[in-house]
């Protein structure tokens, strides 16, 4: 073993004692080796921002505007200046206690969040500093500190770690620094996430909620902006901002008329100002999952009041209407989390994790609750106001299940039904060997559905609500081991849901004035094919084909790419689609490519004017065939 392998194993262990023990075993008598690994581990713990920001880059990302960032920073620090001292480290803005403030990360109604260097422990931290004006009055100060105590009470991978809570010179909370963006930013920039990723992240959030539940804390403000995603190749979710958190007993005594939290993600009981328990957070989790999967929150409205009304009264728009290829099990989990009556939801975060792991909306844990009369948890976790109902669920697409006594049997039946139903979806459609005949079958099936739909300009086609793909797997994964490079102007992604009138936009893209020297590159990435292999590892034998079919007629090959021959163009898309309104693409298309072209259009007001139909674009695909079907609505 060398220092590298020992180091890599050691960093998996968070606990210092565990690490030490591991080092003992791995290094044995070799004191030199051990000390080398130790220095590596120390460097690892203290690395902080080292190398994270590219060598040539803007001074600060996230909240800075295009204006001179240091000005904004200074303005934000203004009110705090009386409490801060001069920085002693170079490039730092100020110092607070033994922390050297490096940069402002964000600000809100309560105060600001900064990134700082802890001189005592030589590490980077995040510090939330309360606004001085607020620090004077007792309620905001108390609330601020309560947040810290709530989060500090929980020690968990997916809950922000609290290092210290100080009240002098002004109240501030020292937290672990997580480099990355919020789920909100991620969704704003890249649109909805694929099901696998949603499942993975949701399990992490639920895991954090479980820790909160165990500590008897309700977060009360679970929303995408409060969920951090670490900046790694495999991002980790961290729940932050426990500003509204309450201990369970505390929460049962709410002040009348005060509704705290973001209305968009609030549970009905919260909206009504009723006593809460941890299941309120589960509802919010459902709202977040809904947004991760569709790109928009489940309950929207023109005003807070309108939103709250919908939260308490309306069912959310069916997920399949927005993104057709979300698998049934995921939808059911989300709908169940969004049940108005909390006794219909999952009763604990563990059940949610279980359901997500097994990809079954029914949780095994649920059976115990209904079959055995014994109460599993302490009274504070069982709501007093709702009675425990027998196994009777009322999700939008489920059948009624009656008696609690047969819950066990019923669950089995349900499982079978689910399997059977998804099975029938799975085998719907054709094989994808690429033979012309099967292409025709596909096309004719779709053609049939087309004919059934409306052909009026602007009216949605009936076809849109039917699953076009042939199995329920999510397509939105990017494929082929190639990250699509993105020319400088296009470094923001619009949400996936928009329409584009493709023939026109391609022509428009080509006609952008020559000043923009990238223009000719865009139509290629837009339709570029890629290796159809779904793993990151490049498969040298894989090839990609892009075909188009107009009005469900025969498939016309546009491009093909093989490792040997490279890119070959067969037909010109513009020529083919000229004047057509409805067509399908089938081929190995990166979602990012479509986004890129559409984003380009959105970023040019002149182009946008020419594309009045910039609305929703549906993308769905088949995991088996690794082909995508993209539908453009007129």
């Amino acid at each position, binding site marked *: 073993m060398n220092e590298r392998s020992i180091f890599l194993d050691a960093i998996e262990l968070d606990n210092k004692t565990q690490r030490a023990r591991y080092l003992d075993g791995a290094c044995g008598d070799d004191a030199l080796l051990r000390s080398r690994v130790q220095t590596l581990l120390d*460097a690892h713990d203290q690395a902080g921002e080292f190398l994270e920001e590219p060598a040539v880059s803007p001074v600060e990302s996230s909240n800075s505007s295009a204006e001179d960032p240091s000005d904004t920073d200074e303005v934000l620090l203004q009110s705090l200046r009386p409490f801060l001292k001069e920085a002693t480290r*170079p490039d730092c803005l100020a110092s607070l206690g033994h922390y050297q403030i490096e940069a402002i990360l964000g600000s809100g109604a309560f105060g600001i969040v900064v990134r700082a260097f802890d001189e005592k422990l030589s590490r980077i931290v995040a510090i939330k500093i309360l606004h001085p004006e607020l620090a004077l009055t007792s309620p905001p100060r108390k609330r601020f500190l309560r947040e810290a105590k709530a989060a500090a009470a929980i020690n968990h991978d997916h809950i922000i770690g609290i290092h210290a809570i100080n009240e002098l010179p002004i109240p501030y909370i020292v937290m672990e620094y997580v480099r990355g963006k919020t789920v909100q930013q991620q969704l704003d920039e890249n649109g909805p996430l694929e099901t696998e990723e949603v499942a993975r992240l949701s399990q992490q959030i639920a895991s954090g909620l479980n820790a909160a539940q165990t500590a008897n804390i309700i977060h009360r403000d679970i929303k995408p902006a409060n969920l951090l995603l670490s900046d790694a190749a495999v991002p980790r979710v961290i729940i932050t901002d426990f500003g509204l958190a309450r201990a369970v007993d505390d929460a049962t005594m709410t002040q009348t008329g005060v509704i705290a939290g973001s209305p968009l993600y609030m549970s009905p009981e919260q909206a009504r100002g009723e006593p809460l328990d941890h299941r309120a957070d589960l509802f919010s989790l459902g709202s977040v999952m809904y947004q991760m999967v569709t790109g928009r929150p489940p309950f929207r409205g023109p005003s807070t009041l309108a939103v709250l009304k919908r939260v308490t009264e309306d069912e959310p728009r069916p997920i399949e209407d927005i993104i057709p290829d979300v698998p049934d099990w995921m939808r059911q989990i989300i709908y169940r989390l969004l049940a108005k009556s909390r006794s219909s939801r999952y009763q604990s975060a563990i059940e949610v994790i279980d359901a997500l792991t097994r990809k079954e909306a029914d949780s095994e844990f649920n059976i115990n609750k209904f079959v055995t009369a014994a109460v599993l948890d302490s009274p504070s976790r069982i709501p007093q106001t709702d009675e425990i109902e027998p196994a009777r669920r009322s999700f939008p697409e489920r059948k009624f299940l009656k008696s609690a006594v047969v819950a066990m049997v019923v669950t089995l039946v349900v499982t079978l039904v689910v399997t059977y139903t998804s099975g029938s979806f799975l085998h719907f459609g054709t094989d994808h060997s690429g033979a012309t005949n099967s292409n025709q079958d596909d096309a004719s099936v779709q053609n049939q559905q087309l004919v059934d739909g409306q052909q009026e300009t602007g009216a949605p086609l009936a076809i849109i609500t039917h699953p076009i793909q042939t199995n329920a797997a999510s397509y939105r994964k990017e494929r082929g081991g190639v990250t699509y490079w993105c020319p400088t102007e296009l470094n923001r992604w619009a949400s996936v849901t928009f329409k584009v009138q493709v023939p026109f936009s391609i022509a428009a893209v080509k006609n952008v004035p020559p000043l923009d020297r990238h223009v000719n590159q865009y139509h290629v990435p837009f339709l570029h094919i890629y290796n159809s292999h779904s793993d990151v590892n490049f498969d040298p034998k894989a090839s990609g084909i892009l075909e188009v079919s107009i009005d469900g007629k025969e498939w016309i090959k546009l491009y093909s790419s093989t490792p040997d021959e490279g890119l070959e163009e067969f037909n010109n898309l513009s020529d083919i689609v000229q004047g057509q309104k409805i067509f399908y693409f089938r081929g190995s298309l990166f979602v990012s490519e479509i986004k890129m072209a559409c984003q380009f259009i959105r970023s040019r007001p002149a182009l946008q004017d020419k594309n009045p139909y910039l609305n929703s674009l549906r993308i769905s695909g088949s995991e088996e065939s690794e082909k995508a079907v993209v539908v453009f609505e007129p």
Partner: protein
Amino acid sequence: MNVMNEITRILNDLQEGDLQSSDELMPLVYNELRQLAANKLANEKPGQTLQATALVHEAFVRLVDVDYTQQWKNRRHFFGAAAEAMRRILVDRARKRRTEKHGGEHQRLEIDLGLLAMENGEDESVERLSEAIARFDAVDPLACELVKLRYFAGLSMRECSELLEVAPRSADRLWAFAKAWLLREVRGESC
């Protein structure tokens, strides 16, 4: 464009396993990046800084015949060369600034490059880091490539993991090791 054809040829040679061509690639990319940086700085507001990713991508678009060389292997070569070029540019600049006196006559290009803002910018640390990276190449070439792509070319972790063809988790681990090793090296703590 002549340069474009040249680069395309080199990338194809590399594809076919002719490793000598790497050396030819770097200077071409280097020139292009310097030129681009200078132009951007000349045309943009004073005080505005550049973004590595933007520069590198723009160079890619300008230099590489996109239609012909979309294959990922070429992109990896290109980005690798670009990262290396960026590193050279920054080290050159750091050295120049270190040895030059203030108020001297500079060539216009040098002044422009002098505006390249550095994160945590002391010139000595750039050189130290660059040297440490050079030594790191012998320790873990893949992790070293990752560092260059991330730090000099400004690519994201995800992009790097795909370019290097490693699983994202492996990329995270490589990155952790690289940071720790380089930090230790730069601090002069290795025993």
